[in-house]
């Protein structure tokens, strides 16, 4: 399978099954397109191309030869030979390696679009006890087999509303990890309201990553991210985020925003974060009911796609000028990225990744918490809903017909089961809107890689 597209002055050809990326000129682009369509012979293809461009038969034949060579080298028109392996990873590795700990089902903000329903996940307000948190880490270690790196995310609600327990869980983790031969990587996701010097010091020492929620411009952020009494939270949190990031000493963090129908010019919000001095940025499309007033619409799609292009081009400019920013979805590693098993085996929810409620119940991921039929067990008895785990085991690139026809499948690994469920009623459904945005982001990310390598050359010509 081939995907080809033109973006920012580059003609790009992706060979989906080998993962190869080719930067071509217009002549080769058209020839590859004719080959894909399969309607013309080589003679006819040559005639068409010679008619359109100022090239000789020898030029065209040279491209034919190059294509033949690439095909021989397994870099063009390669077949998908991976399907038999799709179930391997989840069957070979049934260990659990990541937990999302819902340490607080309560929040000190009342954001309109919160998928956690203002932190409560459609249930009662609750805080996780230290004992439950410790047991969750024991459960993870006991079920992690030979995995060394174990990820634990402190999530909510707002985890800083249960900060002492977070600290206690981390301290317990540090105590048990050496003896167990494990390495805990903790992440804290916070709205920032509760950040103080103690949080900054502890988080910057112990958290592998911190995810800081900021939607961008003050008016955008304050429209949906408000305190319980209706005040905006921008002025409360931005100074705290700056202080935390300045003291972080180069460790990973993400400023993580959500954009909605209200701000489909969301690149302005990303640039605003950059102007504030933040350089590791993430901005996600809102996940909500289509009936919500801020839900993204079909009409928004072309502009959102355009915004992704603006962002990519601007990031290239910033990089060239020596002050780059990173955008989570454009971080693509073409040489050291994931192996084919990872690419085809799905996100891992309900198999290697679970969310833990304040009461110790297990759910396939944080987005399923509160949906009773997705309760999979608890951290004392383990996974008891085996049929549900089997369903999640089957979630992979080949589980959905649409993915088989999609060029981006080895970049997304089959998409988000929660989005699929909420959009279609089935974890094996397709959330097409998300897919469209995903494909656009990958096109931009690959284009940036091409530009980083060939940009100078293009400018010289």
């Amino acid at each position, binding site marked *: 399978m081939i995907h080809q597209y033109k973006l920012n002055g580059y003609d790009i050809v992706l060979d989906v099954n080998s993962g190869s990326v080719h*930067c071509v000129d217009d002549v080769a682009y058209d020839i590859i397109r004719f080959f894909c369509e399969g309607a013309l012979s080589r003679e006819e293809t040559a005639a068409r191309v010679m008619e359109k461009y100022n090239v000789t038969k020898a030029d065209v034949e040279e491209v034919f030869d190059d294509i033949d060579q690439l095909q021989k080298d397994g870099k063009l028109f390669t077949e998908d030979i991976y399907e038999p*392996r799709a179930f391997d990873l989840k069957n070979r590795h049934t260990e659990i390696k990541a937990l999302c700990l819902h340490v607080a089902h309560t929040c000190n903000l009342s954001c309109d679009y919160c998928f956690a329903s203002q932190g409560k996940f459609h249930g009662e307000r609750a805080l996780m006890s230290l004992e439950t948190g410790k047991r969750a880490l024991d459960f993870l270690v006991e079920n992690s087999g030979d995995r060394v790196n174990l990820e634990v995310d402190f999530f909510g609600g707002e985890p800083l509303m249960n900060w002492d327990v977070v600290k206690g869980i981390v301290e317990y983790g540090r105590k048990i990890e050496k003896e167990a031969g494990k390495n805990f990587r903790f992440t804290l996701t916070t709205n920032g309201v509760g950040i103080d010097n103690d949080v900054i010091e502890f988080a910057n020492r112990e958290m592998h990553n911190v995810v800081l929620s900021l939607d961008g411009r003050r008016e955008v952020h304050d429209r949906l991210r408000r305190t319980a009494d209706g005040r905006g939270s921008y002025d409360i949190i931005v100074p705290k985020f700056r202080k935390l990031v300045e003291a972080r000493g180069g460790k990973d963090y993400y400023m993580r925003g959500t954009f909605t129908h209200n701000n489909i010019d969301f690149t302005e919000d990303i640039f605003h974060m950059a102007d504030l001095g933040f350089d590791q940025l993430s901005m996600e499309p809102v996940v909500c009911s289509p009936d919500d007033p801020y839900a993204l619409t079909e009409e928004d799609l072309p502009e959102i796609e355009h915004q992704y292009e603006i962002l990519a081009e601007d990031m290239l400019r910033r990089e060239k000028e020596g002050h780059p920013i990173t955008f989570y979805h454009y971080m693509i*590693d073409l*040489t*050291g*990225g994931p192996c084919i*098993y990872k690419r085809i085996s799905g996100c*891992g929810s309900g198999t290697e990744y679970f969310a833990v409620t304040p009461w110790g119940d297990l759910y396939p991921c944080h987005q399923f918490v509160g949906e009773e039929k997705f309760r999979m067990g608890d951290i004392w008895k383990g996974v008891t809903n085996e049929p549900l785990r089997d369903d999640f085991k089957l979630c992979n690139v080949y589980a959905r017909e649409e993915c088989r026809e999609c060029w981006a499948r080895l970049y997304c690994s089959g998409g*988000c089961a929660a989005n699929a469920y909420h959009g279609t009623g089935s974890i094996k459904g397709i959330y097409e809107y998300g897919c469209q945005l995903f494909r656009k982001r990958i096109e931009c*990310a690959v284009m940036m890689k091409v530009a980083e390598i060939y940009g100078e050359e293009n400018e010289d010509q």
Partner: protein
Amino acid sequence: MKRIKTIETRNLKDSIKNGGCGECQTSCQSACKTSCGVANQKCEKAE
């Protein structure tokens, strides 16, 4: 090749042989939390 330039990428077919250790980060665990992608994941083995 004059008209086709190939960027160096990980050979996915070869990774059948040397991949699958499972030490890499869970896809959704870091910044996004509402979508899924593996393109931006690092291979722990390659590090």
